[in-house]
């Protein structure tokens, strides 16, 4: 589904990804797990097309999207939804407008139906006229997910979306994420530094350190890994 081949990337001459190769399978929830600065968010941004790698090739659905420092397919043509760490909800738009803004559909009634179906699915219908600052943390989270899903993406990228929530709410949203993966037949790439979160949700986990992959496997495989970094990381 998503293939990264020999990707190298720098920020201010500092290497963040070093010849990294990774294959993400369709309809799976893959967690990128690692500490701060290990390059997990960069991988998401490269897949989304928000940045171009220094070298290497990225393919999505067997289509070359980035190659030789060139953006072949722009972000909005990659059929991707992105949930940012800070959620990036547009503060001057209502809940309704936040979801409707990206729709290209011209017919107002169709837009309305699409948006309200989404709001209904996430239980946000009564908040359609509210602004993001008037929502609770969990509602904001659901709004961000609704906004990404309304465009019917095949791939959903989630950059530590639950980092600011309490444990109870986290558990509830994680259930939602698993449900939408099934209902929307999504491939999800989920970035987190919290191994408990990854264990609770992932089909596959990719453990990263200093821009390199240390281990790839299912939850059970990661738990049993002999890799020293992985063992050290899971202890904390």
């Amino acid at each position, binding site marked *: 589904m998503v293939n990264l081949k020999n990707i190298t990337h720098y920020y201010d001459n500092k290497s963040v990804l070093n010849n990294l190769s990774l294959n993400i399978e369709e309809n799976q929830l893959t967690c990128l797990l690692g500490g701060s600065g290990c390059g997990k968010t960069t991988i998401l941004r490269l897949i989304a097309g928000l940045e171009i790698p220094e070298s290497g090739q990225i393919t999505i659905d067997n289509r070359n999207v980035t190659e030789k420092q060139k*953006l072949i397919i722009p972000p909005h043509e990659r059929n991707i939804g*992105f949930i*940012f760490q800070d959620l*990036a909800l547009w*503060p001057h738009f209502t809940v309704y407008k936040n979801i409707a803004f*990206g729709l290209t559909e011209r017919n107002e009634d169709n837009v309305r139906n699409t948006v309200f179906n989404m709001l209904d699915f996430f239980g946000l219908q009564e908040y359609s006229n509210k602004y*993001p600052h*008037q929502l609770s943390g969990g509602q904001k989270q659901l709004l961000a997910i609704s906004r990404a899903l309304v465009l019917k993406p095949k791939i959903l990228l989630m950059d530590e979306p639950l980092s600011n929530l309490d444990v109870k709410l986290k558990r509830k949203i994680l259930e939602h994420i698993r449900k939408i993966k099934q209902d929307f037949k999504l491939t999800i790439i989920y970035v987190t530094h919290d191994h408990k979160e990854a264990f609770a949700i992932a089909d596959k986990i990719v453990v990263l350190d200093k821009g390199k992959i240390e281990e790839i496997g299912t939850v059970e495989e990661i738990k049993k890994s002999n890799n020293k970094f992985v063992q050290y990381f899971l202890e904390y």
Partner: protein
Amino acid sequence: MGRKLTTHPLSKVINLSFIFFAVMPIVYTLGIALFDDSLLYNLQLIEKETFTLLAKSCAIAFTVSTLSTLFGTILGFLLYKTNILFRSFFKLVLLIPLFISPYILAVAWKDFFFLFFNTTSFISSNTGVIIVLTIIFTPLAMLIIGSALSNISSQLEENAIMTTNIRNVIIKITLPLIKPALISSFVLIFIFSISEFSVPAFFGVKVFTTEIFTQFSAFYNHTLAIFQSLLLIFICISLLYLDRKHIGNSPFLSVSDKGMKTKNYSLKNVKAWSMLFLFSWFLISVLLPFIILFIQSFKNDASKFIQAFELLKPTFINSIALAFFGAILIVFIGFSAAYQSAVRSRKSFDWILLVIFAIPSTIYGISLIKFYNQPELNFIYSSYAIILIAYVGKFSFISSKLIANAIKQIPNSLDEAAQVEGITFFSRIQKILIPIIMPSLFTAFIISFIFSLGELGTTIMIYPPGTEIMPIKVFTIMANAPQSLTSSMTLIVFSITLLLITSLYFIVKFFTKKFSFVNG
């Protein structure tokens, strides 16, 4: 390096237009001066006659910037870091001298000495220039230092309070933390003071800018005027360069109080003295000049005031319209520069704006005349367009800084989220960015409008024949007019500026409330 995406060709068009209309005059003027036949002769003149005057201007600018930064620090501390009474009122009214033309205060203080001491010899001197310029520029220091003080996280000071007394906290924690703002304040005020033309000209004090004006306008020695200008440009740009290098990207001109929680000090037993200081400053810088101008205008009867009003009446619409369109252009250029610098991390255009901003007004005026006084460009030279170009050149940097500070507060992810959804570049700018930074755009518009309305240093050099705008009319008439007529005209300009500032302040307040989404 991480590659930045999507550069819009429109920004290139804007940059190139600005460079052609506002920067080329400087390059052209310096170019022709360097290839002038009288180069060596003029260089000798510079050596012989100019350096004493330059030293005098530097000494005046140094004293003004030291005093303004000192008073600005005290006022900034009282208004931004204490619980003193009427803070909001004083924060607003003490800024007035910054927004009115400097010659207004010069006229008022000359009137004061004439009224009470029957002589103006004390104020028409170097000391007078220092006093008036200090009154004018202290609000700028107050604004810069006050913004820095309100951006200090309370935790930094509270941590220190647990280990030492308040005096030590202020000296060892608070002041070192605002060092960049103190340096910025000093440097900017030095540049403004050394470039100031109208106050020394009104007091008849010979300084470097008046000398350049004389060489250009009275002796028509353009080459010498340009060489003298080069010295001033060199000083101003070097200082700004060092300042920028030292303080990096600190938002030296921020008008919002957004940010972290700040620590406020209780004044306790110095409360009365602090209030007295605040009120005295308000009296000296705003109230007294207004009252004096009022008394002088109506000393005998209202005839001089009526005459002044009739003289200025034709200028009202022109001045306001020019300032209005100037401010629109300034905000447009400022926005483009701010976007390139804050979002795309491209600082080159920002630097160009900074360099033009640092060039003293008189010199910028000379450059515009030299460049546009050619048959092909005469349509600009002989129209209001040259004044608009001057406004845009002089004030785009300030607008760009204000807007960039606002853009920097918006997470990149808001734009990126729209980018992923396929929203076009213009749609993202129009529907995401602009609505969010609308209060800052309004603030930038109003500050640009007020500055353009009062601009004199450049306009006095370039105004086309028959131009009817307020500062020019007042300044040209005041040379031969009786004192009461000068005072009346100044009072009218002062009142109009105050009226506009007040109305625009409420408009900004309305829009800030309307567009305040983030804080609910």
